[in-house]
């Protein structure tokens, strides 16, 4: 019941060597630079005289070690995801001898947690587990399978001669043209096909297609593949299954880059950077762009804050008042405090200061006799508060956006730097010797990204001694990053090649070390609870 079962669904690719070796291959591909860097580093220090080059490579080696965790991760293509899924099923199947297609439904029920499945399977509540997963326990199947020999799946074709009426199309058909799951509710094959097709194509259902009768037994893969002939529908079904496999699997995540078909698989879940083969770098825990030093909760909040218009309403409350009569929102654009509402149907006269009717003010408004001390103070306070909050937000948002913008521009530097590298190679520099430029742009971009997120972190941070230290680090990094950017953007074309090399190398090494210092400091703060947030509901 095992070996021929998985092929039906995910065609031939599953040659057994598949998963492991291909994945290792990919690891190699991914880490090519890494390996090369180390190799070069060793070579340089071995020859003793590599000078700047050798040092540079050591920096790059350290960098890789820092961002690549001790726990490796894998990038899986769609085919590999399917292979991985089949492997998971096989693994469970080697312990629990039940049809693979049942194993898949069970695994899906336990969100692909094999241990949990095994635990429940071998516990007393096995029957209940099958009921929860909406499958008929395979040991209950024996009797029926004896009557009608199983044709490869859970879907049992009833082959007796008599006829029966399909409860969907109400036609009377020979039993051989009908199919029933183990629950024993037969429907004619063409109704089954139409039913499954409409579930897949219209509702996007894959894991949750139930028997059409008044029963919740799930339709298995074998039956789906047997009944559905249209390749478009089959393909969509496979997509849906893979999709739910990745979505349910805590250890896997789709690469969030647009149109990227890959998924990343880790050993255990944590907030960490992972890089897809498409070169998109993202946080495994939350799928956002890698956002160190900010934690996932805060980056989520920040993005939401930037997206929704909470700040628009802040601006409105800081800069406008409402007409006391018709409640139209008014922005004052002149000096005179005698307001006349522009709303044609309102035309109220009122005082901008106290919002009371203008009449009693008469000509002597400077002694505004309707001034209510408490009320005015409350109004002023709340306005000032939202004004201050708005300004604080704009301060951090501006800097965040600015680094984001710079980061975008600096991605263009790569092509500029490549020209420069070609030019330098024509001036008697070896290929290895000019690699520092690319490295410099790499580091510049990393610094930009870190700086960008430091402003998000700072926005939510309450002042204390440690936060001042953090700001000092931030300032230092920002300063040196700007220098590096300037070197790469301007000086590079003007100055002498040897000078610039020394300068750029010194600078990017400094930037990289400052970046590391800043991040380490923030991380240490997380461990030691240094950070106090501006809002109480933020827990880190």
């Amino acid at each position, binding site marked *: 019941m095992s070996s021929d079962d998985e092929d039906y669904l995910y065609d031939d690719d599953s040659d057994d060597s598949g998963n492991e070796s291909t994945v290792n291959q990919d690891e190699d591909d991914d880490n090519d630079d890494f390996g090369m860097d180390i190799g070069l580093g060793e070579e340089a220090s071995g020859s003793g005289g590599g000078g700047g080059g050798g040092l540079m490579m050591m920096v790059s080696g350290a960098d890789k070690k820092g961002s690549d965790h001790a726990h490796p991760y894998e990038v899986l293509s769609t085919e590999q995801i399917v292979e991985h899924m089949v492997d998971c099923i096989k693994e469970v199947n080697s312990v629990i001898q039940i049809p693979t297609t049942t194993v898949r439904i069970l695994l899906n029920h336990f969100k692909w947690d094999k241990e949990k499945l095994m635990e429940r399977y071998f516990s007393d509540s096995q029957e209940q587990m099958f009921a929860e997963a909406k499958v008929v326990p395979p040991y209950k199947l024996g009797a029926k399978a004896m009557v009608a020999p199983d044709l490869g799946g859970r879907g049992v074709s009833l082959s007796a001669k008599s006829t029966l009426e399909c*409860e*969907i*199309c*109400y*036609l009377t058909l020979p039993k051989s043209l009908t199919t029933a799951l183990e629950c024993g*509710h037969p*429907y004619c094959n063409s*109704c089954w096909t*139409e*039913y499954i097709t*409409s579930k897949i194509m*219209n509702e996007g259902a894959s894991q949750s297609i*139930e028997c*059409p*009768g*008044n029963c919740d037994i799930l339709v298995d893969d074998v039956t789906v593949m047997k009944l559905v002939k249209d390749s478009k529908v089959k393909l969509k079904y496979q997509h849906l299954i893979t999709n739910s496999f990745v979505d349910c699997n805590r250890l896997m995540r789709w690469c969030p880059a647009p149109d990227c078909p890959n998924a990343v698989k880790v050993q255990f879940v944590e907030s960490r950077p992972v890089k897809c083969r498409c070169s998109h770098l993202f946080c495994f825990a939350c799928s956002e762009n890698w956002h160190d030093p900010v934690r996932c909760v805060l980056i989520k909040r920040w993005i939401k804050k930037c997206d929704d218009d909470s700040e628009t309403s802040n601006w409105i409350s800081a800069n406008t008042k409402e007409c006391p009569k018709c409640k139209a929102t008014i922005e004052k654009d002149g000096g005179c405090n005698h307001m006349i509402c522009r709303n*044609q*149907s309102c035309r109220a006269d009122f005082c901008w200061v106290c919002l009371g009717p203008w009449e009693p003010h008469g000509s002597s408004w400077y002694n505004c006799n309707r001034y209510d001390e408490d009320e005015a103070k409350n109004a002023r306070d709340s306005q000032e508060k939202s004004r201050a909050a708005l300004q604080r937000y704009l301060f951090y948002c501006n800097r965040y956006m600015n680094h984001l913008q710079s980061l975008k521009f600096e991605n263009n530097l790569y092509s500029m730097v490549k020209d420069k590298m070609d030019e330098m190679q024509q001036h008697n520099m070896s290929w290895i010797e000019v690699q520092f430029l690319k490295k410099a742009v790499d580091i510049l971009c990393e610094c930009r990204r870190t700086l960008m997120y430091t402003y998000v972190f700072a926005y939510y941070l309450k002042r204390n001694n440690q936060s001042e230290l953090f700001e000092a680090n931030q300032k230092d990094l920002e300063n040196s990053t700007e220098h590096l950017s300037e070197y790469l953007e301007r000086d590079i074309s003007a100055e002498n090649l040897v000078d610039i090399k020394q300068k750029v190398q010194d600078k990017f090494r400094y930037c990289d070390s400052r970046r590391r210092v800043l991040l380490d400091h923030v991380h240490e703060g997380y461990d030691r609870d240094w950070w106090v947030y501006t809002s109480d509901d933020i827990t880190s």
Partner: protein
Amino acid sequence: MNDHPRLTAVFARLSFGRTSGKKPARKATDNPKWEKRLQKELMAIMKDPPDGITVSQDTLEGSDLSQICVNMTGPSGTLYEGEAFMLRFKFGPKYPFDSPEVVFTGENIPVHPHIYSNGHICLSILTEDWSPAMSVQSVCLSIASMLSSCKEKKRPPDNSFYVKTCHKNPKKTRWWYHDEDV
């Protein structure tokens, strides 16, 4: 102030509704296989009618099976005893894989916590829990049992808001089925 944006939006929607209404909608009876099923469903109800349920005269005389009306009498021993209601079924092109559109019509709409005053019924088998193995008969029985189990005649709490804002077709409403007992 004159061209109020929301009003224009409503007009736009109204006229859109009118033009699209002219196009003949596809229906279940376009496909002979499903027309046959509907015929058999009707035959079954006529031959062996469940308590208090009869197919309306109009439906019997008419030739269009894509829309049928069923008379329902309030089951005896319930709050609705003796009352007469009418249910209208519309079958779309995907019937029976897609549920029929079922509403109460006519002058008397049952006062029930799950039935809105415009006839829309909040019942899960009419949307997400529909299955092609269900039928006009089983839907009628479900509705009858929904009426029977009712303990207090009242409209749903959000009736007035819903009736003002809902789509003509109850299947366009996203229902929340919050209680299973009534």
